[in-house]
Structure formats: C-alpha cells, structure tokens
C-alpha cells in the first residue's frame, strides 16, 4: 500500500549526502569581465534580458532574476577632488547564497525547493507551481518567478542551481570554470572557508583595512540564515554591495506573529460569548 502510494506520488528516497559544495567569490580579484554571467546563461540556456542601459557604471544587468543567476556589480568610489589612492572601482559577481537556513526553502509550500546532496538549494521545476512566496521571502532578492506568459519556463521560480547537473558529473559550475582570475572559486565549503580566512589575512597585511568576509559561520550575517554556501570577500561594508547586515529568516519571528493573531481571535470569541451569553 505504501509502496503503491510512493509509486503514484513519485516518492523517491534522496541520494546519499556528499560533502557540501559552494562558491567563494573573492571580489578583490574580480575584473568585471562578466564571463561568469555569459557562461551561466550559456550552460543553463537562459534567455537574454534585453539591452537596457542603466547608466550605472558598467552594470547593465541590474539585478539577479529568473533568467540571470550571476550579476556583476560595478561600484565607482570617487569623491570630487580626491587623490587617486582614494578612488576605487569595486566589482563583485553576485549569486544565490545557498544559505544553510534558506528562507525560500522554508517558505515553499509544495516542496519544490529542496536541499540537494551537495547541501545546495535547488528548485525542482516539475514540482514548483509558481505560488511566488519564495520571491519576497529571500532576504537577498535572489529568487524570482519567470513571467507567466513568457518564453522561458513560464510561471515557475528560478535561481542559481550551483550547476546541479554539472555537480552530479563532478564538474565545476560554469561561472567558476569561466572565471579568468579565480575570483569565483568552487569547492568544498569548509576548504573554501579556510582559503578565505588566509586570503583575508593576506589582504589585511597588505593594507586593505576595509576588507571583510561575508557569509562565514562566525560572521554576524550568519545569525539567522546560517553560513552562506556561496560567500564573499568584500572590500567594503556589505551595504556597499546591497547586502543586508543581518539577513533575516522569517521563521524566527513567526510564532510571535501567530501569537498576536491568535490573541485577537480569542479576544473576539470571548467578547462574542459575553455579548450573546444567557439569552437562551
């Protein structure tokens, strides 16, 4: 009976867990070539987003989205009359963070969003019914629903898969493979974290005082969403890259919110009982 149910509902036992894989994006090495964006689009067969000019440095991509899973930011830091040493051009290849406690995954009502054997967060395209709840749940604004009547996988949620298909065949994700400066490094998360700590120490020693890691287990940004399996070495405060100081996990405050809601409901029922009482 249970076997028949499992066959009917396509219930399979998950593959055995493997070592956690992720990205370490070292923005100090990024040259803004956008090879990652192109490689991602090509491998994952994502359509182009048009040719809009934003007027914001070389960033004509704008944001991550349903059909854009890598996004290179360009930050021009130059004050008027400042010396050349004070002027910086920061670049950063943004991507889904594959949070240890992912808000999108917790929001998903269908179980389409799953954690894979590589500890990454993945949308099963045959399960997602496009409810759209993961979209505002993500504290980083990563995941998005493809337009309902578009050409590309209409109506379901999309984001970086960490090239799940390539991982299955022991291959490096397309963006990391194409990165010419090793700004995007792929590997076992723990090993990458170790590498990141060394790199930070090296940069600090060279005088990059504002450099910091974002998404490490010890960082305050891991308070709610946990360590990010795609984490970053930044050259300025997280806000500079539109990253929140402490990305929120909605689950943390949900009980309190239900509590207030229940209090109002119970209060109404009590008043109702009092109003109608004893009129039989």
């Amino acid at each position, binding site marked *: 009976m249970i076997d028949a149910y499992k066959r009917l509902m396509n219930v399979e036992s998950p593959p055995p867990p493997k070592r956690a894989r992720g990205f370490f994006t070292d923005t100090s090495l990024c040259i803004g070539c956008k090879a990652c964006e192109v490689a991602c689009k090509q491998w994952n067969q994502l359509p182009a*987003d048009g040719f809009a000019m934003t007027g914001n440095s070389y960033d004509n991509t*704008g*944001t991550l989205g349903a059909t854009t899973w890598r996004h290179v930011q360009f*930050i021009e830091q130059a004050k008027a009359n400042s010396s050349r040493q004070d002027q910086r051009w920061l670049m950063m290849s943004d991507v889904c963070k594959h949070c240890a406690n992912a808000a999108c995954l917790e929001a998903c009502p269908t179980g389409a969003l799953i954690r894979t054997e590589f500890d990454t967060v993945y949308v099963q395209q045959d399960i997602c*019914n496009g409810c759209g709840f993961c979209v505002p749940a993500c504290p980083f604004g990563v995941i998005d629903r493809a337009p309902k009547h578009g050409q590309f996988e*209409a109506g379901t949620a999309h984001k970086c898969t960490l090239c799940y298909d390539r991982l299955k065949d022991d291959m490096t994700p397309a963006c990391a493979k194409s990165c010419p400066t090793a700004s995007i490094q792929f590997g076992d998360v723990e090993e990458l974290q170790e590498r990141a700590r060394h790199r930070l120490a090296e940069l600090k020693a060279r005088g990059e005082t504002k450099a910091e890691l974002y998404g490490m287990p010890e960082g305050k940004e891991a308070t709610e969403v946990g360590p990010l399996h795609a984490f970053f070495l930044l050259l300025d405060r997280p806000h500079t890259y539109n990253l929140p100081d402490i990305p929120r996990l909605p689950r943390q405050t949900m009980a309190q*919110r239900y509590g207030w809601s229940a209090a*109002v*409901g119970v209060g109404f029922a009590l008043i109702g009982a009092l109003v109608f009482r004893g009129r039989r």
Partner: protein
Amino acid sequence: MDAANSPPTRGNLPPPLAGEDQARGDGGYYDYPVVRRPVWTWEVPAYFWLGGMAAGAYVTASLAHGFGSADDRRATAGGYYLAAAALVPCAPLLIADLGRPDRFHHMLRIFKPLSPMNLGAWTLTGFTPIAFARAASHAAGTGLLRGPLGALARLVPTRLAELAGCALGLTLAGYSGVLLAATNIPLWAKSKLLGGLFMASALASGSAAVTLQAARRGAPDATLHRLAALESAASAGEIAVLAGYLTQSGRTARPLTRGRFAAPFWLGAVGAGAVLPLLLHRLAGGRRGRALQSLSAVASLCTIAGSLALRWSIFEAGKDSSEDQSASFELSSG
C-alpha cells in the same frame, strides 16, 4: 522579454522628508532594491478579504448559535450562507494567482505548517467543506433543502461543525497577515502585528456581513444591538492593533501612510472602514426598528468595504516598500 531585469525605479516611493536625505543615502548599491518586488496580483488581497469575511461570518454565527437566544440564532443563521458563498471564489482566486495554475494540487502534496502558504492551503481545504456542510444543515432545517440532499444535510453534526469550523476559520482569518509578514518586505515584516491586524479586520467584516443580512431581513432590535456591540468591539480592536502596527513600523510604513495608497488607506480602511462604523453603531445604539436597521446596514457596508481597502492598500503599498532600500537595511540591522 525587454529589459526584464532592469531594476525598478524608486518612483513609487513617497519623497523623503526634509532633512532625511542623509539617512536615505545609506551607501547601498545605487538605489537598487535589496529584496525583490512580490509578483502577486489583485487576486491575493481579494482572497484575503473574502476568506477573512467568510471566517468572520462563520465565527459570529457560531457564537450566536452557541450562546445566544432563539432570536439570535434565527437572525444570524444567514451568516452560514454568507460564509459558504464568500468561500466559493476563494480557491479559484488562489489558483488564478499561481504561476502554474495547472499545478495547484501540488500545494497539498506535502503538509508543511512551517510555510504559511501551505498551512493556508490546507486550512482553506478543510474549512470550505465544513462551511458548506453547516450551511446545508441549516438549509435542511428550514426546509429549503429537501430530498436526499436534505436528508444527508440533516446528518451533519452541527455543534461539531461549529467548533471545528471556528478553529479552522480563525486560522484562515489569522494566517494571511502572518503570510505577508513572513517575508522580507519592510512594510509587512517590520511590525509583529500584521497577522493580528488582518485577523481583526476579518472578524470585523465577517460580523458586519452577519449584521447586514440580519438588518436586511428585519431582525429583532435586541439581536441587532448585540451584533453591533460585537462588530464595534472588532472595529475598536482593529483601530488599536493598527495604531500598534503603525507605531512599530515607524518610517517603514511611509509607502502606506504617505505613498500612492495613502488615500485608500486613510479614507477607506481607517475612516470609512473602522471609525465611521463605530460612530454609526453608536448613533444606532438608542434607536429601534427601521432606523436601527438602516443605520446598522450602512455601518456594516462601510466595515466590509473598509476591510477590502485595508488588505488592498497594505498589499499594494508592500510592493512599493520592496523598493525601499534604506527600509530594507533598517529591517535587517538586527
């Protein structure tokens, strides 16, 4: 697919207050939003409104049936019809809003109360048949439903249906605000009271719907006075929770209080939807007969319309709030 990814402008946000510019320019990435704009459309607030009203009407009718006089029971039984009727468009609205409506049943593929969306889908699935069964049972009792269906409806255990329906109905009325709040949209998530606010609004509109049908069908004065007291309590509660919500939200609430939806919010949801019905019910307090019936009916219509204005303005202003970079930084500052 032209420029699908170019970031939305902040044009929908109200202009910053004088002297607020420094606080706004928080050193973010240009003025790009931190979070994504919700993709939901009008079906969602319409569903929240109808589902909440159905739940409120069911709970009100059940309270009158559990505690009230024979007059109260007779006058409020129409609430069961209203609850069932308001639930009819709910599931279609929810399904229409999906990106893949053909896969609506995937909502019930798993039971995951951690996700308010999943909890709501299950609650609606449970509440709808109970509300219909209770309405059918009443119809059979009054002789409206005859034949084999009527005989079947007579088998419905009414007291059990009322208790289970109230539990599920209150969940349906209460989860919608929590669902919006369980996101990273500043306007929805900053305060802890959105769930309570939607609950109060749902119960106010539901009891108002019961009052409306009772007044239209010429219910006894005593019953109308009791219903008015209950509805006023809900409206007063709604105003109190709303005050708390706006206080907790602070500057984050500006897309609602000063933005494009300020008029439907202040005039519709607060003025016509909560304050005016309170005054009208107070005015009706000493009256009897037709004057009482008319005043109750007008007050109830205002409450019902205001409930829609509240859901709609908070829902739409929340979309604008997603573009508020500094509010997002404030929300995630710990």
